[in-house]
């Protein structure tokens, strides 16, 4: 009971802050619009995928949803360092709640934000004319989006817990998220690249999110969806554990 209330309290604060921060919500919508509209629609005309019956825009859309979740969730981790810099972390650390509850509350908070943004991108893609397979697949994809949100928020939080300053997080974040996005099979099909590149792509957790979303939304599939979900779940749990460990060493 106490733990749940603590998790809820930490989560609620993230929601209150997010609700007041309309500007950053709007600006974070620009990037997926750019990818879908400029890249998907514009470039789609000259790209031949070799995937039958699917336009490039449709192929790209699940990847853009996953990408938006990746960026929002991962950079959500920095909030720990802002709390540290603004002094609020002391208020949290001195409270009689477990460090695991703090990390879980933070991860759920950031993941909720990322999930809602992913949902908005999904709606945008529908407005741009992307057609998805079935209502059932659509519903199931929400679960994958939630899992992806947790996974990358946990990753961002673990990284932030190991650092001292928000600026260093931003710097490292840019170097990690960009390759993750390009090497995720989001932009081109997995089997159409050399083996060494495919190996890198298979080491990237985002790959499994993109592929699972594609399976459920447009029925294009390169990896067994059970494997994808297993990989993402394991990754989330490991990052939560690592994050809790690093966070509990924090002094304020």
């Amino acid at each position, binding site marked *: 009971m106490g733990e749940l209330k603590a998790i809820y309290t930490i989560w609620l604060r993230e929601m209150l*802050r997010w609700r007041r921060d309309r500007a950053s919500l709007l600006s974070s919508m620009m990037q997926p619009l750019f990818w879908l509209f400029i890249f998907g629609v514009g470039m789609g005309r000259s790209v031949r995928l070799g995937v039958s019956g699917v336009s490039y825009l449709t192929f790209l859309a699940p990847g853009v949803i996953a990408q938006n979740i990746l960026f929002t969730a991962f950079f959500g981790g920095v909030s720990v360092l802002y709390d540290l810099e*603004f002094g609020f972390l002391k208020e949290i650390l*001195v*409270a009689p709640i477990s460090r695991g509850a703090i990390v879980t509350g933070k991860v759920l908070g950031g993941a909720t934000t990322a999930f809602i943004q992913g949902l908005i991108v999904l709606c945008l893609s529908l407005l741009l004319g992307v057609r998805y397979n079935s209502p059932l697949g659509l519903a199931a994809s929400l679960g994958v989006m939630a899992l992806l949100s947790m996974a990358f928020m946990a990753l961002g939080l673990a990284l932030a817990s190991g650092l001292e300053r928000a600026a260093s997080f931003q710097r490292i974040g840019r170097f990690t998220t960009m390759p993750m996005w390009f090497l995720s099979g989001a932009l081109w099909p997995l089997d159409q690249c050399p083996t060494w590149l495919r190996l890198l792509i298979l080491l990237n957790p985002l790959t499994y999110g993109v592929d699972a979303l594609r399976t459920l939304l447009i029925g294009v599939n390169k990896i067994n969806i059970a494997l994808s979900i297993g990989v993402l779940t394991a990754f989330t749990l490991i990052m939560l554990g690592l994050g809790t460990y690093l966070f509990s060493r924090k002094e304020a």
Partner: protein
Amino acid sequence: MVKAIRVSGLTKFYGDLLAVDHISFEVEEGEIFGLLGPNGAGKTTTIKMLTTLLRPSDGTAEVCGYDIRREPDAVRRVIGIVFQEPSLDLELTGRENMEFHARLYDVPKGEMDARIEELLQLVELQDWADRLVRAYSGGMRRRLEIARSLLHHPRVLFLDEPTLGLDPQSRRHVWSYISRINREEGVTIILTTHYMEEADQLCDRVAIIDKGRIVALDTPEKLKGIVGGDVLTLEVGPEAKRLMEAIRRRGLARNIQMVRGQITLMEKDGEALIPVLLRLAEEVGVSVNSVSLRKPSLDDVFLYFTGERIRSQAPEPMMMWRMRMMRRGR
């Protein structure tokens, strides 16, 4: 009976820097206990260790009988704290900050709203409760933090420089909240400060801390008693050293200190000493710009034990008369 706080050999190194050096002391339940010391003395470091935010390098402490190293969660449950640096969420309203705290400390839902209202009233912020903290002044933020620290009925309250940066009027307000909290809620209070008056007026007992060590610990009255009856200050200037040596040679005062051209003597009968000192100054050819006599303050106690002043300017005199001396050699 269990002491509110029992500190034994508490030590903190930051790398090579020894910030807190094996300090030990005890605080009784219901007491207002002060840690008085200059910048960098180790006050905040001590408070952070006692509140489980920093791990000690050596030694330990108990708060309400719970060990800060082995039972940090139990310690966290019984303490409240106002940090030296701000610790509010500026993007939330005052009330939201309070509610966040109440939920973290599991204050029952039925009690929460009334308790928040009561405390906001205590610190006179009820009209500001629903505005973002971003819009609060520094003094209002401080008051909100004090109210917040009391929400969950802590048994021991830590206040790290509670009046730092406040104007004299707000400072007096905060002092009155602190004594009310202590009286009406029976909370043990441990506060740090480098304002002499604050330690003097508010605290039952004061530990004077310098360079990570406790140099003296007693009630303000007793501490001032150590110094002696009167404090005589002579403003001399660059020749101070010569005059001081002459006073020493004559054995006119047991305790004598010099800080930046100012000689301070602590003696029983200061008044009778003034003419003697002036005659001596004349003999050795040193000009004295002014003489003042007053009762000792805690700053004098600090000077007595460390040979330095806590802050550069002299403290507010309690009883003082000034004699402007004619400049000689004119």
